[in-house]
């Protein structure tokens, strides 16, 4: 049985805990996620290096989505904007689909697994608050 990343290239699905594949400009000392591959947005430096970013951060904003046209996920779900401790402001989903009153909360990524009818496993990091971190996903 293999693990497949729902978002290929953004993380290693075999890591025991989620970490994000970013890039870093050493001139600006800035990390990017999603990874900027071809040059730094601030200075144009083309020499970016790959870095691994922690999923730990603080929720900047959150919104419960009630209407979603795609088939990849059923609404409602909660989109969060997270200021990562490693720098970037990213967007992801909360593991908990019932509460978007989490601005300011500390969060970290946990694997969420989907198993299809053939037993194939696909994974993505979803975020949980520190208060929920003892719970299993």
């Amino acid at each position, binding site marked *: 049985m293999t693990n497949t990343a729902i978002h290929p290239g953004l993380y290693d699905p075999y890591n025991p805990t989620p970490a994000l594949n970013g890039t870093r400009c050493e001139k600006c000392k800035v990390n990017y996620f999603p990874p900027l591959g071809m040059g730094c947005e601030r200075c144009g430096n083309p020499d970016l290096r790959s870095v691994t970013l922690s999923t730990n951060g603080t929720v900047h904003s959150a919104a419960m989505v009630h209407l979603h046209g795609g088939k990849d996920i059923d609404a409602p779900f909660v*989109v969060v904007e997270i200021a990562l401790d490693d720098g970037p402001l990213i*967007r992801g989903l909360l593991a908990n689909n019932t509460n978007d009153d989490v601005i300011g909360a500390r969060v970290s990524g946990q694997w969420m697994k989907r198993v299809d009818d053939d037993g194939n496993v696909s994974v993505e990091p979803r975020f949980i608050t520190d208060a929920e971190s003892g719970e299993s996903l």
Partner: protein
Amino acid sequence: MNTALKDLRPVYVVGIGLHPYQKPSDTPYTALGVHAIRAAIEDAGISWADVNSAYTGTATTAMGMSRLMYRHLGATGIPMVQVENASASGSTAFRQACIEVASGLTNVSIAVGVDKPLGAKMPQRAAGIRDLGGSRVAPFTHFALLANRYMHDHGATPEQFAAVAVKNSKNGALNPNAQRQKARTMEEVLAPPQISGPLTKLQCCPIGEGAAAAIVVSEDALTQLGLDRSRAVRVLSSASRSETVYEGENFDAALTRETTAQALSETGLKPSDLDLIELHDAFTMEELLYVEAMGLCKEGQAASQLVEGQFDIGGRVAVSSSGGLLSMGHPIGPTGIGQICELTTQLRGEAGKRQHANAKKGLAHMVGVGAVCVVHVLSV
């Protein structure tokens, strides 16, 4: 060194025309566009043969669409080009027409916005950019995130966001070209369906179809064509910027602040000098965000000032007298030129029941995904 519009030849809007914004239908884009163009030509009192160039703002219809539309006016051989700049496509087409006349390349140019929602793709997908949100973060969720953060920072309420839609629906009910022509109560705006965060359906703009046209001319053309100067509206400034790095500040607000400041500085006007503002209120929270970013009031004060009626027709400054994107609609390509049509109508004093008294200065603002921002200031 950059040159401002004010340093070039004066540019005037002399003709405007609209095809009403509406739900997607079987009407071909050519029929939508020709309707608006003929209305603008009639309004200006010129003939199609007087038009030297055409810029068409469009984002969702098809490539190479201009000539199939303009040929119905007579194939005069003028240069024509499509302008795609996301939601700011029409605004950018108008800017290009103004620049062409101001530079002296031509004396009469037409900017037309026309669109049908046939197949737009978000640019991140085409660029191969992936993130953890992906397609789960639709534009309404982008603004729902901003809305919830705004409520967190400023203590605003869902009712204060909804008040934007109540106000703009009242204006849209007076606009025969609006897609939504029904005045809504607070209860109706807050009623389900809930879309994302605090945003309900009536707090999200309708995406439909339509067309808008604006004819701009030089001083020479005013004289040579014998046009009615009393109905000519001067384009004082045109500013266009793209997103840069804002170090944590919301980019929609920061880009609006920069672009509006540039447009106003070129005119010598202050935000408080404006009588009219047409802005990119695709979602209710945007009106509050942008009014503050433009400097109409301090951060966190827009919600209370809106509820006080300061942004009503007849208030301190009429914001979205057309009904805005929320009620007039947002057919994408036409939207920015539709704003120019509304400002021109108001500045001429021809807006009838939705007339803002003594309107002398107006500002049109559009942002586009990417992100870009285009601002024009018009005056009589």
